[in-house]
């Protein structure tokens, strides 16, 4: 079948990207997939014997002491903590990010690039360094506690560091730009005359927000939520440094299997499970956004 020239050129131009995808994404994923069905080596690596033991151990555990099989309660707890913290992070970044994006989108057009530029500045600094900066803020003798003590609001330092709250603060800070940028893109396209029109039709402020603004900017909200939720779910550095390591998130748990746990197949199986959760979230995204377009049409 003959392709039109421009289509053929487009296909040719995408070859570098396709090669990169094959070697950079598909290849490593395939290795992870295969490893999940092998036996762990004695100290690291894998032994090339097929087994589904790793998958069994993702979902079930044999009691360490009497060998009875039950649901893998520890794994469920860890996955649930990750999902919960990621959802909360998404909610927090939305609540902070939406007014922020609204503010920027309603600035005069010549000032918007400057505001957007400010949003991207944190990306110039390494994640690790930003996380340590947050650690300095949250420490017992850190900026926040010293300030609150100075104000006299508290009389002894609050233990924020090494709690789930510290992880939430850290992740919300790190991922906020990922929420603001798509929200801005959505609000920027928003036709503000619609608001005037709805006020003319006696809509309350709450109704305008709920019935007009939120539905129209929904693709931006969903995109921002996905962009925040997905990396939060696999977060490693933030929970490791700010969470104090007492309670793991999935990322730390997977690292344990590849490191001190010396069980690569289990780590690989857990990675695949994480991938499946992310895929489900993305599919939900596609459904939600394409649904809205049908209704708009």
């Amino acid at each position, binding site marked *: 079948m003959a392709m039109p020239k421009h289509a053929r050129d487009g296909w040719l131009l995408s070859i570098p990207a396709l090669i990169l995808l094959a070697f950079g994404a598909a290849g490593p994923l395939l290795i992870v997939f295969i490893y999940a069905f092998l036996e762990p080596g*004695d*100290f*690291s*690596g894998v032994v090339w014997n097929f087994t589904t033991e790793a998958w069994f151990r993702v979902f079930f*555990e044999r009691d*360490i*002491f009497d060998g009875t099989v039950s649901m893998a*309660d*520890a*794994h469920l*707890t*860890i996955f649930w903590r990750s999902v919960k913290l990621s959802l909360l992070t998404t909610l927090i970044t939305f609540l902070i990010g939406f007014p922020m994006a609204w503010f920027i989108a309603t600035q005069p057009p010549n000032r918007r690039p400057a505001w957007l530029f400010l949003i991207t500045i944190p990306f110039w600094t390494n994640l690790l360094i930003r996380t340590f900066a947050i650690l300095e803020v949250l*420490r*017992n*003798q850190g900026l926040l506690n010293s300030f609150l003590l100075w104000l006299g609001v508290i009389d002894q330092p609050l*233990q924020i*560091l*090494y709690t789930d709250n510290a992880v939430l603060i850290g992740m919300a800070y790190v991922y906020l730009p990922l929420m603001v940028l798509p929200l801005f893109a959505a609000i920027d396209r928003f036709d503000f005359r619609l608001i005037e029109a709805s006020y003319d039709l006696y809509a309350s402020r709450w109704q305008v927000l709920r019935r007009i603004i939120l539905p129209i900017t929904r693709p931006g909200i969903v995109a921002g939520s996905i962009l925040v939720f997905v990396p939060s779910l696999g977060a490693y550095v933030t929970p490791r440094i700010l969470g*104090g*390591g*007492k*309670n*793991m998130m999935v990322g*730390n*748990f997977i690292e*344990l299997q*590849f*490191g*001190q*746990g*010396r*069980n690569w197949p289990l780590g690989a199986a857990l990675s695949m499970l994480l991938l499946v959760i992310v895929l489900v979230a993305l599919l939900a995204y596609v459904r939600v956004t394409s649904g809205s377009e049908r209704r708009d049409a």
Partner: protein
Amino acid sequence: MKILLTGTALTMALAGLAQAEGSLNIYNWGNYTNPELIEKFEEEYDVDVTITDFDSNTTALSKIEAGGHGFDIVVPTHSYVQIYVGKDLLMKPGIPEMENYGNISEVWKNVDWDPGREYTVPWQWGTTGVAVNKTAYDGDINTSAIWLDTPEELKGKVNVVPEMQDIMNLSVMYMGGEPCTNDKELLRQVRDKLVEAKSDWMSMDYGMTEKMSNGDVMASVNWNGSTFRARLNNPDVAYGYPKEGYIVWMDNVAVLKDAQNVENAKLFVNFIMDPENAALISSFARYANGIDGSEEYMPDEMKSAPEIVVPEELKAAGKFTSSCPKEVQDLYTAIWTDLQK
């Protein structure tokens, strides 16, 4: 921008001019190598040294096993030396024939993990015990009860380093067992003890040199040298040797079988067995080194430091642990996961 570019080009040109005869790539624990030692070696032999950090034995082993790493020298803990040998990753650089071989202390010459020192030479040795800030707690600190039966004053202020092997073995010894035990009844008690103790902990984290110094953490499972460095910053910090059993270890310098710069690696191995150079290693990381005659080159505070000189009555409680067999390892990991869920 133009000035910046010119500056960069200039630096690159100068670096090119100053290029040494050869190079040497060392793979060592982080914050563990004295820069003065490296400068001295570079000057003496005109060799360009690059140091890369690792944070755990497992990380180091898996990276080296994977190949293509480009390292010449690695510094594994004693419990890992036989694993490296078993996987045929180390070479015999002819250590007993080296000029400075005679400086290795007699006790460190014929060690279980490397009889006759064919593969490795001592880097530093130390102990894993507890660090306590005396302003927060002034009771007996020579016990793992600091973190396993945390005293009232320290509740919520204790850290436990997330070093699975060490923590498991310390707990097993606290409950009256031997390291790497496969006694399931005892391990059940160990798990229950750890899970119960955890509610009194503040965190499970590394970096105690700094956090004990600045008072973020009031007590922690910790290594002696790290505690020593913390005490130099904060005199309230003290080190305890748990009487129920604490861990003794030695990190060893080995030349990798696929080293690219074998001659330079051999020079380095011989170099660090010189007492003056061994003293440089210790005066930075604050652990003892196992080289005779190095004491006289060390700063005075090293010679009598309570973190270095083990009290006579507690010497017997120190245990050299080996790497546990796979079945024990699986039990340890399962308990560890239960603990951190």
